[in-house]
């Protein structure tokens, strides 16, 4: 028997706004509204709202939180600043990535945002490792909702809705305050490569907030528009942000995935030892960016060839709406990772020429 599919508090709103609902990570989520490419471009040029309530939201309390999380996370969280968020991985003993998550240090507790698909796994992992600590873990995924408001016009438009000075919330910082008596936490972060905010509010009131953001079906907001998971995926690919199940998995370590910036090998954490060894020996394969000839899309698991032999595998690919070219990420053997290396990708019965390019594919203008 399949478990029943979860609905976010905004399910009805999505359907009313013309969202096409699909199942993702056990949730019924909108894959698109106006169209993936249109929503993508709109996010790059204006402002889009994504329902990301399917992401896991956990609250950890207890004096031991810092040392507990520091032992489980690749990032060094010792001395973490209150009001700051940290992108990190959590790994198995062998270095395989269990999930990538955002850990946030509040004044009296810690928050974790993890992938929807890994929520139960992470809760289980955390519980398994804390018998000797005073840490308590509360799953707040269903009692809260989360929206990502993304795009170059976000700051200006979101500021019209709240009194709190949003520009004072710097990148990877957050603030909790009351909006119409409702507790709201606003993070300056996102998964699109654009400036923006991620907002967490109690699930019971999110429907009240949405018309203020998006307007109504009859009177939609002229600039802020809804966007779905389809555009979220093409946006994150252009920004070369990893997606769990594609660039990250239990079979891949953080270094191979090219995320060494969030790994502190000078501290002890679960999975550190094998990664230290790997670093010493040199990585047999690495994540690279590819630019393909033509309009065809390289999809996950498509084979990558170099010197007429198989040297790797595609993790994600799309026809970049911003650049107008076919782009992909792939794990390839160490000798083929240099920028400019000519490779081939097997698409159907054809071999399509591809060149190794620098990641990310897209960087927002400062």
């Amino acid at each position, binding site marked *: 028997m399949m478990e029943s599919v979860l609905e976010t508090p905004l399910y009805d709103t999505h359907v009313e706004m013309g969202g096409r609902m699909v199942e993702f990570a056990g949730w019924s989520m909108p*894959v698109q509204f106006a*169209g*993936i490419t249109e929503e993508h471009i709109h996010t790059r040029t204006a402002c889009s709202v994504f329902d990301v309530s399917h992401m896991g939201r956990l609250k950890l309390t207890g004096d031991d939180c810092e040392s507990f999380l520091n032992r489980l996370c690749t990032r060094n969280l010792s001395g973490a600043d209150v009001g700051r968020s940290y992108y990190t991985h959590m790994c198995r003993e062998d270095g395989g990535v269990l999930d990538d998550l955002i850990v946030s240090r509040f004044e009296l507790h810690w928050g974790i945002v993890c992938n929807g698909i890994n929520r139960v796994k992470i809760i289980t992992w955390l519980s398994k490792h804390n018998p000797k600590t005073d840490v308590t873990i509360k799953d707040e995924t269903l009692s809260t909702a989360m929206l990502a408001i993304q795009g170059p016009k976000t700051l200006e438009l979101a500021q019209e809705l709240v009194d709190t000075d949003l520009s004072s919330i710097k990148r990877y910082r957050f603030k909790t305050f009351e909006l119409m008596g409702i507790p709201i936490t606003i993070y300056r972060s996102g998964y699109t490569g654009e400036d923006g905010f991620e907002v967490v509010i109690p699930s019971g009131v999110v429907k009240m907030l949405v018309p203020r953001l998006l307007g109504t079906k009859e009177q939609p907001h002229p600039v802020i528009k809804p966007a779905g998971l389809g555009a979220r995926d093409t946006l994150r690919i252009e920004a070369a942000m990893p997606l769990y199940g594609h660039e990250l998995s239990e079979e891949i370590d953080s270094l191979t995935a090219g995320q060494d910036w969030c790994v502190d090998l000078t501290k002890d954490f679960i999975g550190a030892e094998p990664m230290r060894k790997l670093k010493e020996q040199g990585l047999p394969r690495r994540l690279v960016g590819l630019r393909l000839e033509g*309009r065809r*899309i390289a*999809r996950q698991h498509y084979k990558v060839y170099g010197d007429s032999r198989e040297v790797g595998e595609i993790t994600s690919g799309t*026809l970049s709406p911003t650049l107008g070219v076919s782009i992909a990420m792939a794990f390839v053997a160490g000798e083929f990772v240099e920028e400019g290396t000519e490779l081939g990708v097997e698409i*159907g019965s054809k071999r399509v020429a591809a060149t190794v390019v620098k990641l990310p594919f897209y960087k927002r203008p400062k």
Partner: protein
Amino acid sequence: MNVPTDRKYTETHEWFLPNDDTVTMGITQYAADELTDITYVELPEVGTTVKVGDQIGEVESVKATSDINTAVGGEVVEVNTALVDHPELINDDAFDDGWMIKIRPDSTEPLTALLDAKEYTSFVQDAV
């Protein structure tokens, strides 16, 4: 759901419209909507001979790649070359501007076994 009554349908969402001596084929609006933004179309060359059930091309969207199969055999006599540069024509109008190829059929007999508009509509609605 808009499903023209002048043509026949397969359960794999291709449509076939008999003309004087050719059959025009394409994919349904439902299929185009499900695929989301179509980014690439591969079609056979004019003069290709195809058999019933042959794969005649592929459509690729941001989300997925799908094979296109023909339900009639014959010779490909015309290809919608506009789709090469504008594959989005299929999303815009799958039943008209988004047509894919015209086949001069060996026989139109196989079409009689396909779904009519009403049957296709209920097939799609049952699938949802």
